[in-house]
């Protein structure tokens, strides 16, 4: 496993700008030059994946200075979650990152379960893993489609969204919603998996590897694609670690690190998958990592389908989990429990916890503080997109304006998650 070498001073030999690591400043001798043009790129621009604003200093086509401005999509999720009872707050989590919704749900639910010390049944664990991996494919497909679209490959967009729609259909089948499923409940799943899901999912597992072959045959040796991705947006392994990058960006920089393997949550230690790592640290490496991750995710889904355990899909703890509907008609105690959980919400013991999962964008962490009451005291999401944007200044040094699109795209940021 790769371990970053010792580095006495953070700014020695790195490309991270100084003194502000996230702002690229125009060299002093060009500051008064009239040839340097400052433009606003965004916040409303089709290739900023939402509302990212980049203040760019241009010298001809060359990017000399760059500062990312975020916050246009700030909706106060964390403040809102403090006002809701624990189980209602789950609804907010998926909306933070609208492409990796199930991973967001998962991390919040895992954090609450860790505080409760709740045992989750095996079926729920495996099903969560299956959906999290489908969600990873979904997120990477949207990334691939839009990133290619920005570089002019419109057909990729249609192909990717064709498969994306199949995944959304699966989500609809299992949870009733295409996006923001809120299917993970504290203790397990909100409902059992409907019987028709397995066949449909197996069909998808069969189709998807061929679809990935299609994508790769479209762009892998495409001259334009290679020209516009190779050698651009360089991020060395040391810089990536210092800038807190995670997920495909980190693995594209040659750091062999995946929380699914390193910290093995859910049932990832029981399935066989490979962690793709590329050394180049450029846009192309990140693209390759994501493509191979999709293949690995399909393999994990396949294994989960074959080995899905039976049994209960939610924990049997009446203080936390809603009792089965039919019991409400016959059991007074169930009715009381149901009433208490629905009106007041369950209580979580006092304490604080930080849980991290590997979302499609990298380390998605959730820090939760409880005072023992029915509402969270504090919820903080460690958003991988937020951190990824910190790398724009480093990756963009010596870039041209046209490359900027490819580089920002390759970091795969979701602005909902950045601004929360």
């Amino acid at each position: 496993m790769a371990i970053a070498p010792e580095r006495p001073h953070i700014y020695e030999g790195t490309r991270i700008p100084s003194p502000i690591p996230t702002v690229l400043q125009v060299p002093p001798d060009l500051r008064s030059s009239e040839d340097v043009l400052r433009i606003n790129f965004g916040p409303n621009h089709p290739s900023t994946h939402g509302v990212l604003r980049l203040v760019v200093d241009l010298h001809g086509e060359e990017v000399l200075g760059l500062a990312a401005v975020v916050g246009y999509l700030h909706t106060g999720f964390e403040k809102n979650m403090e006002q809701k009872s624990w189980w209602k707050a789950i609804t907010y989590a998926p909306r933070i990152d609208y492409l990796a919704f199930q991973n967001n749900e998962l991390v919040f639910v895992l954090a609450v379960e860790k505080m409760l010390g709740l045992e989750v049944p095996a079926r729920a664990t495996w099903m969560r893993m299956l959906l999290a991996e489908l969600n990873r494919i979904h997120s990477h497909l949207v990334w691939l489609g839009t990133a290619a679209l920005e570089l002019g490959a419109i057909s990729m967009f249609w192909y990717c969204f064709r498969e994306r729609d199949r995944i959304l259909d699966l989500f609809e089948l299992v949870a009733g919603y295409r996006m923001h499923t809120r299917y993970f409940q504290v203790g397990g799943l909100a409902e059992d998996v409907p019987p028709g899901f397995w066949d449909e999912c197996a069909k998808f597992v069969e189709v998807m590897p061929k679809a990935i072959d299609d994508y790769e045959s479209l762009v892998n040796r495409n001259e334009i694609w290679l020209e516009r991705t190779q050698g651009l947006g360089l991020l060395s392994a040391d810089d990536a670690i210092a800038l807190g990058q995670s997920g495909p960006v980190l693995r594209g920089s040659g750091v062999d690190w995946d929380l699914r393997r390193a910290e093995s949550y859910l049932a990832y230690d029981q399935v066989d998958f490979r962690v793709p790592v590329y050394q180049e640290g450029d846009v192309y490496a990140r693209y390759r990592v994501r493509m191979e991750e999709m293949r690995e995710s399909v393999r994990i889904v396949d294994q989960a389908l074959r080995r899905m355990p039976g049994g209960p899909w939610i924990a049997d703890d009446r203080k936390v989990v809603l009792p089965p509907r039919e019991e409400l008609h016959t059991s007074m105690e169930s009715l009381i429990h149901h009433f208490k959980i629905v009106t007041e919400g369950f209580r979580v013991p006092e304490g604080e916890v930080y849980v991290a999962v590997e979302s499609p964008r990298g380390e998605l962490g959730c820090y939760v503080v409880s005072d023992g009451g029915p509402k969270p005291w504090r919820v903080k999401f460690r958003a991988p997109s937020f951190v990824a944007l910190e790398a724009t200044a480093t990756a963009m040094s010596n870039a041209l304006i046209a490359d900027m699109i490819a580089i920002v795209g390759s970091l795969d940021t979701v602005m909902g998650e950045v601004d929360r």
Partner: protein
Amino acid sequence: MVDAALHLRDELGFNFLSDLAATDYLGWGKAGVSGYIGTPAGRDLNEPSTQGYQRLPVEKPQRFSISYHLLALSEGAPRVRLQVWVGDGQSVPSVVGVWPTADWFEREAWDMFGIAFDGHPNLSRILMDDDWEGHPLRKDYPIGGEPVRFSGEE
């Protein structure tokens, strides 16, 4: 504080700052807490679950806490939480020089909680507007209290 951070990074190998989370503990424990009794290992199922006030949460030394969640990219993925306690109006040394990724995290903590970081190269608001008043994630910041512009009434 910065020495401790450098020690953690260079001697103990915590080279990756996962997260920096500030928390406001204003009003902590004032409401009293009912419900079942939690233990460090989680819930104790043998304890009766009663309603009514049972015990208060442990008092906190200062109003704000800042939690640095550190990760070592090595076998076993060890994690460590470094926690600093800050009173209202006090400031903390910045760790941008130790982990550059702290840049935006510290700006976010300043924006949301009003905790100043000494030595931060660019401590400005990040999520809210530059001219925003107040720090939204503070417990005394009202919800739904902001005036609505363009409401139709002049």
